[in-house]
C-alpha cells in the first residue's frame, strides 16, 4: 500500500503513468522488430529488453521455435514468439541488421 501511494505520487509529479510508459516501450519494441524504426533510435531500450529476454527466456532446447525462414517473416505471431525466446531474438536480430 505504501509503495502504491509513493508510486502514484511519482506518476503525478512526472505527469506520466507507468502503464503509459510500458505501453509506449512495448510499441517501440514492436516497431523495431517489425523493422519500422532503426535500432539506433531505441538502442538503450532494445539492449535492456534483449538482456531481459536472455535472462528470462533462454530456451536452450528451442521449444516452440519456428523454422529460420518462417521466423524472418514479419508477422505478429513471430514477433510474439521472438519476444519470449532468446535464440530466436538473437537470430532475428542478425536478420534485422
Amino acid at each position, binding site marked *: 500500500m505504501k509503495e502504491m501511494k509513493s508510486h502514484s505520487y511519482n506518476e503525478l509529479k*512526472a505527469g506520466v503513468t507507468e502503464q503509459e510508459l510500458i505501453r509506449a516501450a512495448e510499441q517501440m519494441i514492436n516497431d523495431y522488430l517489425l523493422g519500422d524504426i532503426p535500432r539506433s533510435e531505441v538502442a538503450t531500450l532494445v539492449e535492456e529488453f534483449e538482456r531481459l529476454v536472455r535472462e528470462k527466456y533462454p530456451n536452450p532446447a528451442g521449444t516452440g521455435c519456428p523454422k529460420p525462414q518462417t521466423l524472418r517473416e514479419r508477422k505478429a505471431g513471430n514477433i510474439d514468439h521472438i519476444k519470449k525466446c532468446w535464440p530466436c531474438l538473437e537470430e532475428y536480430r542478425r536478420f534485422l541488421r
Partner: protein
Amino acid sequence: MATTPKKNSPWWDREVDRSGRPIREDVRAAAHEVWEQVCNRARALLGDDADAAEMLEVSVEAVSRYLNCKKIPLFSIKISGLLDRAFHCQVKKRCYKTARIETVGTTTELAELEPVPDWTAKVDRELDLRKILQHLSPRSCSILWLRRNGHDWHYIANKLGIALSTAQNVFWREIKQARLKLQVEPASGKTDQGG
C-alpha cells in the same frame, strides 16, 4: 372539399385515399360530424389538437377501408361512433410514441454530451512518451522492463543491489528530467494507479 370549422384546424376531406382508392361518402360525412369532438379528445389527451386533422384523415381512410371490406352499404349504419373509435386509437398511438421519445436537449447540448476525441493530442502524447523513453538510462530501461514483466519494486531493488526508494527515485527522476528536457507540459493530472 376542405372544411374549416370555427376555431379548429382544417382537415383534408379527400375523395380518394393515399392508395388511390375512393373514400366512402358516409365516412366523409361522419368525419364532419365528429370533427369538433375529436379535436376536443386530442386536446385532452395530447395537450393540443395540432395533429387532429392528420389523425382524422388516417382514421377516415381506415374506417372506409374497413366498411368496404365488410361490404356494408353506404349510409346503412351510423358511422360516427366507429370513426370516433378509430380516432381514439390514433390518439393513443401518438401518446405512446410521445412517451417513448426522450428529449435530451438541443443540438449544442448533444454535441457537448460526447466530445469528439482529440486524436492529435493522443498522437502528440505518444510521441512525447517515445522521446522520454529514448532519454532513459540503461538502468531505468531495465527497471521499466522488469516492471512490465510484473516484478515489484522490492524485487527490482534487490536485483539492482540498491534500496527500494533509490530504485523508485532514480527511475522517476529520470522521467521527470526527460520531460523537462523535452519541455513537455505535464499531463492534466490523470494518472493510473500503478504500482
